[in-house]
C-alpha cells in the first residue's frame, strides 16, 4: 500500500489494504457532551492481528462497544467483510461473524463447558439435546482452542485462563471471522499466556482477523502485525509492529499537554502540620503504617507509610490489586499476614471499628456502595456520624445539632443551597453525588481517608472542587490515600505515588521524581 506522507506518524487517512476485514471511518462518539472518540479511522486487514493500545479512558472500550452493537456512533461508519456494518445489538455482531472475548467473562459457571459453547444452538433430536453429538462438537472446538478438558466439566471448576480459552472456543463455534481479545492476559499465568499466544497465531494462520487490546506492550509487539495507538479518543499512531518499540508506544500513549486542572499545592515546607519544619513528607510523622500485608492470590508484600498531611497516590492498571488493597485496609476483606497501625495503634476488626479509630473509605462506585440512592441528601450525609447526635438516656437524635452540622458541611463542600436536604440523592448529578459521599466522611473527621477513584465520571469543575477538599483535609493534618486510574490526576494531586502491578508495589516516587513513562513502565506487567 501507498503512504504519501511517510514522515507523518499520526495519520488520519485510512490505511487500506486490498483485503480489509473491518474498517472504521471517521467514528465519533460523545457522552454528555464529552467527545470520547474523535474521527477514529483505521482498518484491520484479513488475516492480520491488530494491537490496540492506549491509557485507561483513551476510548478503547467505547470503540469495542460500538463494534459489538452495545453503543451506536454519533457519526462515521463501519464496514465489515466488504459491506456496511451497523449493529444494533450483540446478536447482530455475532451473526455478522464478530466474536468478543471479554475481560469480564460472560460464561455461566453453573453449566458445563459444552453447554456454554452451544447455549443458543444445542444440537437436538425432537425436544431433547443430543448429548453425544454435543460432546463431540464441543470436544472438537476445545481441541482447536487447545483446551484439553472433558466438555462436561463445569465452568466453575476452570481457572481464569481456561475460561478465556472457552470464550475463544465459543467464538469459533459460530466461525467468527474477527475476534476481539480485550485484555486477555490480565488474569493468566505465564503458561496460560503461552497457550493463548499459540492460539492467536493459529487463528491468524486460518485467515481470521484479530483485534488485540492490551497494556502488555511486549506481548502486543510480539503478537501483532499492526499497532494502533489511541489517546483521548483519537488515533495518534498506526503502523506495522516492526516499526514500533515499547518506548515510542508509551510516549505516544501519554504524550499530552498538562492543563491546569489542579489547585495549587504548596510545597510541604510551607504547609501546616508537624512535617513543616523537616521540609519533606518523608520526614513527617508517620500516620498509617502498613507492613508486609499479604493475602494469597490478591496482594503480596505490601509495605508503605502514609504520613500526616500527605497525599499519597496509588497508580496501576485495572486488576493490579489497588481496590483490593483499599478493602483490606478498611477491613472489608481479610488479610492473612501483615500489620497495619494508625498513629502507632494496631488497626484491626470490622470497618465499624476502623471508622471509630479514624479510617474512612470512599469506594470506587458511588452508586453501588457509596450512597443509599433512594435516601435523602441529609440521610446520606449523616449516615456515618448519626450516633454522635444521639443523646442519652433514650438515644434520641438531637435534630437541631444534626441540622447545624449538616448545614456546615454542605457549605464546606459547596453543595448548592438550592438542593433540598430531603431530595433523594439519586436525583443529583454525579459531581454532587460525589460531594455528598465525601462530605459524609469529612463529617467523621477521619485521620486517614482512602479515596478509590474519587473523580470517576464527574465534570472538570466538580473535580477541581474535590481536589481542593482533599488538599484542605491534608492541610488539617490527615493522611490521604488516592487510588486513581488517571495518571494525570495522581501527578497533579499527590505528594508521592506508589505504583502497583500484579498485587505488589513496584515503584515509589516522590513528587520530584514524577514521570509518566516511569509510572507506566512500573505498572505494566512483567
Amino acid at each position: 500500500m501507498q503512504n504519501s506522507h511517510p514522515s507523518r506518524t499520526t495519520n488520519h487517512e485510512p490505511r487500506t489494504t486490498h483485503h480489509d476485514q473491518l474498517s472504521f471511518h471517521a467514528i465519533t462518539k460523545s457522552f454528555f457532551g464529552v467527545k470520547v472518540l474523535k474521527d477514529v479511522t483505521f482498518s484491520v486487514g484479513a488475516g492480520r492481528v491488530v494491537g490496540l493500545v492506549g491509557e485507561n479512558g483513551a476510548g478503547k472500550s467505547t470503540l469495542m462497544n460500538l463494534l459489538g452493537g452495545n453503543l451506536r456512533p454519533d457519526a462515521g461508519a463501519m464496514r465489515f467483510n466488504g459491506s456496511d456494518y451497523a449493529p444494533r445489538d450483540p446478536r447482530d455482531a455475532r451473526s455478522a461473524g464478530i466474536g468478543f472475548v471479554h475481560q469480564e467473562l460472560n460464561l455461566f459457571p453453573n453449566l458445563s463447558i459444552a453447554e456454554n459453547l452451544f447455549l443458543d444452538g444445542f444440537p437436538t433430536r425432537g425436544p431433547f439435546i443430543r448429548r453425544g453429538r454435543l460432546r463431540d462438537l464441543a470436544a472438537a472446538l476445545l481441541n482447536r482452542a487447545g483446551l484439553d478438558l472433558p466438555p462436561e466439566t463445569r465452568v466453575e471448576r476452570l481457572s481464569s485462563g481456561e475460561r478465556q480459552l472457552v470464550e475463544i472456543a465459543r467464538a469459533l463455534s459460530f466461525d467468527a471471522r474477527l475476534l476481539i481479545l480485550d485484555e486477555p492476559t490480565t488474569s493468566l499465568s505465564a503458561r496460560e499466556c503461552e497457550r493463548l499466544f499459540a492460539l492467536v497465531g493459529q487463528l491468524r494462520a486460518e485467515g481470521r482477523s484479530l483485534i488485540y487490546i492490551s497494556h502488555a506492550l511486549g506481548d502486543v509487539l510480539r503478537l501483532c502485525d499492526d499497532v494502533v495507538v489511541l489517546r483521548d479518543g483519537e488515533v495518534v499512531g498506526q503502523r506495522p509492529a516492526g516499526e514500533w518499540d515499547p518506548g515510542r508506544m508509551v510516549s505516544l500513549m501519554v504524550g499530552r499537554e498538562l492543563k491546569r486542572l489542579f489547585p495549587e499545592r504548596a510545597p510541604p515546607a510551607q504547609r501546616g502540620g508537624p512535617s513543616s519544619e523537616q521540609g519533606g513528607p518523608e520526614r513527617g510523622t508517620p500516620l498509617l503504617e502498613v507492613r508486609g500485608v499479604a493475602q494469597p492470590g490478591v496482594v503480596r508484600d505490601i509495605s508503605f507509610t502514609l504520613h500526616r498531611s500527605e497525599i499519597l497516590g496509588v497508580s496501576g492498571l485495572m486488576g493490579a490489586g489497588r481496590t483490593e488493597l483499599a478493602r483490606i485496609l478498611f477491613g472489608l476483606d481479610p488479610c492473612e499476614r501483615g500489620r497495619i497501625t494508625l498513629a502507632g495503634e494496631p488497626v484491626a476488626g470490622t470497618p465499624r471499628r476502623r471508622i471509630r479509630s479514624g479510617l474512612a473509605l470512599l469506594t470506587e462506585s458511588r452508586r453501588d456502595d457509596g450512597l443509599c440512592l433512594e435516601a435523602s441528601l441529609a440521610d446520606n450525609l449523616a449516615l456515618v456520624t448519626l450516633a454522635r447526635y444521639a443523646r442519652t438516656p433514650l438515644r434520641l437524635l438531637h435534630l437541631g445539632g444534626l441540622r447545624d452540622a449538616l448545614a456546615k458541611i454542605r457549605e464546606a463542600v459547596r453543595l448548592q443551597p438550592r438542593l433540598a436536604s430531603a431530595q433523594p440523592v439519586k436525583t443529583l448529578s454525579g459531581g454532587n453525588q460525589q460531594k455528598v459521599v465525601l462530605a459524609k466522611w469529612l463529617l467523621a473527621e477521619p485521620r486517614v481517608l482512602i479515596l478509590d477513584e474519587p473523580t470517576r465520571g464527574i465534570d472538570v469543575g466538580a473535580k477541581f472542587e474535590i481536589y481542593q477538599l482533599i488538599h484542605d483535609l491534608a492541610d488539617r493534618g490527615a493522611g490521604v490515600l488516592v487510588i486513581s486510574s488517571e495518571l494525570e490526576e495522581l501527578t497533579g494531586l499527590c505528594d508521592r505515588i506508589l505504583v502497583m502491578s500484579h498485587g505488589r508495589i513496584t515503584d515509589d516516587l516522590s513528587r520530584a521524581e514524577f514521570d509518566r513513562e516511569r509510572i507506566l513502565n512500573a505498572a505494566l506487567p512483567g
Partner: protein
Amino acid sequence: MTFLRQRLLFPALNHATLLLFLGVLAVFGALSPKFFTAANLTNLLVQSSSTAIAGIGMTFVLLTAGVDLSVGAIMFVAAAVAGKLAQGGAPLPVTLAAILAVGLLYGAFNALLITRLRILAFVATLGTLYIGRGLGLWITQTRPMDLPDGFLALGAARWLGVPLPLWILASVLAAAHVTLTRTPFGRRIYAVGNHLEAAKKAGLNTRRLLASVYVLSGLCAAIGGILSLAQLGAVSPTFGANREFSAIAAAVLGGTSLFGGRGAVFPGTLLGALLIQSVENGLVILNADPYLYPLVTSAIIFAAVLADATRNAWLERLGRRRIYHEHG
C-alpha cells in the same frame, strides 16, 4: 482442621438434606414401630406428593432467581372453580381439566405481570396471592364445598398396586427432571438464573424463558391442588393457604438456591418434600402435641438452610478474585 473441613464437613454440608432425612427416619423408626410399616411409608409418599409437585414448579421459578408466592392461591381458585362446576353437575374429567386450565391461566397472568409489565416477581405474585384468595372466597361464598365422591376415589385408586397419586408424582417428576437436564429449554433456565445479562448477550430469548417458568409453576400448583382435593374431598375457605411456603421449603431443602442457577428437582425437591412430610407423619404417629409440628418443621428447615449458607460462604471464599498466580 483443613482435612476435617474438606473431607468431612464439606461433603456433609453438600448432602445436609439427605443426612437430615435419614436422621429423621432413624429417630422416628426408633421411637415408633409403626413408622417403618409399608402402609405408613406408602401413606407418607402419597401425602407428600402434592407438596412435591408444587415444589417442582417452584424449583423452575427459583432456578431463574424468581419466586412464586401465589401457589397456594392458585390451588384455592382452581378448587373453588372445580367445586362450582361439580355442583352444577359437570363430569369429573371436565372439572379436572378446568382446574388445570385455571392453573395455566393464573401462571400466564403472573408471567404477564413479571415479564411484560416488569413488576418484581415477589411483588407481582404477592399481589396475585391476595387476588386469588379473594377470588376463591367470592366464588365459594366463604362456605366449605363438598366435592363429588369421584375425587376421593381418585386418591384411593391404584394401578398395578401403586396409588394413583404416586403415578402422577412420578410422571411429573420424570418430565421435570428430563426437561431440566436434557432439553435446551432446561439448560437455558440455569443460564438465565445464573446471569440474566450474560444470557441476553448469549442471544437467548430471556423474556420467554422467564414467562414459561411461571406458567409451569401455575400448572404444577393446579396438579398439586388436585392431589390435595383427592385426599380431602372438600374445599374449605383455607384450602391451599400457605402452601407456597411448603413448596419453597421443599425446593430450598433440596438444594435449590434462592439466588437462581443452582438446584434440581431430582433428588433435590423430592427429598425436601419427603423430609417435610416425614416429620409431620412421624409426629402424628408419636401422638405429639399438634402445636409442636410447625416448631419441629421449622427447626429442620432452619438446619438445612444454615448448612446451605455455610457452604455458600465457603464457596465464595474459595472463588474470590485472584490478582496474581503463585507461579505467574
